[in-house]
């Protein structure tokens, strides 16, 4: 303890040791408690990880044996059947460009129509699920549960079931995306509606407006911009989702891709993947542009 020397050199007020001791003890206890909490957390995390290593059947030895395959696989993705690198013969590499572009267009349309139907569903559901507009507690709770199930069950599971009900093709894919979208957006929309300013709604009500007029002129103008930007974000997600719907027979480019992967048509796999990546990036950029101009419009008002 250097309390005495400190007092001798400077005029800084330092508490006497007797008063400092309990403070130091409290500090040490707090630090120890923090360390203990951190340690417990680390031990639990390590235990969970060890358990999942066993659960996922990871064996380090096979991993090292197989990791060489990965390099080999990606090397083959970049080479044609003739052994030449893919970029030396783009015409041969993208031999199915016309067909793939058509399927990619189909994928985009599935994503678009699915998103549109889902947005309409979410729009209808959010007014029921929001506590601001519907007084009926039971109806509200029921709507929330239904939305929760719709967004927790993955869209591919819906697609699997719908393929059995509706037959192969884009229809089950559109339905699956629509239901998942309605569940995910319905929740977000309801939260937005819960946070609106009630004064315009009261104004319309005071002027004798019906429930419909209150929603149309009091609520919709406040929420439309955020609804639109969330819908665009969801569309980006759904484009990615639609690219794999074909794996279960629900239309789009996925079917072509899974056949290429399963039959080891390496050059086709890389060509289709590149097309998908290019398309997704294009959509993301366009949608980001639209969202920014929406935000500007909103800011200008």
């Amino acid at each position, binding site marked *: 303890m250097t309390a005495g020397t400190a007092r001798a050199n400077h005029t800084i007020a330092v508490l006497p040791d007797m008063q400092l001791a309990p403070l130091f003890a409290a500090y040490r206890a707090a630090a120890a408690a*923090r360390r203990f*909490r951190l340690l417990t957390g680390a031990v639990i995390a390590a235990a*969970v*990880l060890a*358990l*999942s*290593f*066993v*659960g*996922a*059947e*990871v064996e380090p030895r*096979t*991993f090292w044996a*197989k990791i060489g*395959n*990965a390099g080999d*696989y990606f090397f083959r993705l970049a080479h044609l059947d003739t052994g030449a690198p893919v970029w030396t013969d783009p015409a041969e590499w993208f031999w199915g460009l016309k067909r793939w572009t058509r399927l990619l267009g*189909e994928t985009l*349309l*599935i994503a*678009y*129509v699915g998103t*549109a139907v889902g947005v309409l569903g979410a729009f209808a559901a959010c007014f029921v699920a929001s506590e601001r507009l519907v007084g009926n507690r039971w109806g509200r709770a029921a709507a929330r549960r239904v939305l929760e*199930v719709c967004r*927790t*069950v*993955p869209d*591919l*599971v819906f697609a*699997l*079931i*719908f393929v*059995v*009900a*509706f*037959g192969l*093709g*884009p*229809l089950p894919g*559109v339905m699956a995306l629509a239901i998942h979208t309605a569940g995910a957006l319905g929740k977000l929309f309801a939260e937005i509606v819960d946070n609106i300013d009630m004064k315009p709604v009261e104004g319309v009500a005071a002027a004798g407006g019906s429930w419909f007029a209150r929603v149309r002129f009091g609520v919709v103008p406040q929420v439309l911009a955020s609804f639109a930007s969330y819908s665009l974000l969801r569309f980006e997600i759904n484009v*990615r*989702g639609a*690219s*794999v719907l074909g*794996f*279960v027979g629900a*239309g789009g480019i996925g079917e072509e*891709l*899974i056949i290429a*992967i*399963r039959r*080891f048509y390496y050059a086709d*796999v890389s060509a289709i*993947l590149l097309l*998908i*990546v290019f398309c*997704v*990036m294009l959509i*993301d950029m366009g949608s980001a542009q639209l969202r920014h101009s929406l935000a500007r419009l909103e800011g200008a008002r």
Partner: protein
Amino acid sequence: MSGMLPAPQGRLPEYGWRSHGPGFLGIGIAVGLFVFGVVRLDLAPARFLSGLARLGDIMALMMPPSPETWSRFLVYLDALGQTLAIAVLGTTTAAVLALPLGFLAAHNIIANNAVHFLSRRLLDTVRSVDTLIWALIWINVVGLGPFAGALAIASADLCALAKLFSEAIETADRRPVEGVLASGGSRAASVRFGIVPQILPVFVSQVLYYIESNTRSATIIGIVGAGGIGLHLSEMIRVLEWQQASFIILMVLAAVAMIDAISRRVRRAMMSGR
């Protein structure tokens, strides 16, 4: 009428093409694209209605959900555990690898425009490949099974997490870093004591959130053979065992709700513990 209000003075706001034109145009394009899609994808109402009727039958057949026998139930429980293991392992691997990548892509750590631009583009590119596609690729590399699933989740989320981390690093407060440097710390020390404590909570809460969402993804990668409960689910749907299929869906819902609750508690504990 004598009680009429006085006529409004001045110009009323325009309600016509100039103010609402772009909006109408946007709605027109959206509706047109929708109609085009419905026609092009051949979404015929007759097929839709007959399919709905069949869907109703399927829903009726799903009731009540049941695993039929206890041994099947145990098999499903085991597969569900595997699914959770895939989600945890895949997300953790992704997070551990994403941290250095995040530093690399952060502008305030590596102040090199070329590195920044290239790493961001690369992250964006890999991010646009779906988990299920990764699963198929890893199955070809390491064979069928949960290991391929964990690798698929790791590779799909690596880039998303790296991007999130790099954004967290870029928005981190500069002052602690300056403080460390001013008191004579090295550059490495300024990252370790100035930045890492700021992004650690972001790191942990994002990882927890991704484990949640990956529990959902992990249920579907089994459909292509990458381990977990998805394999059983797609099998039961294919052989039209609807009661078992609905039981598996309920198990997945319960597992997701459980993970949800746990991660919410951990996050709250972290927030209060600091």
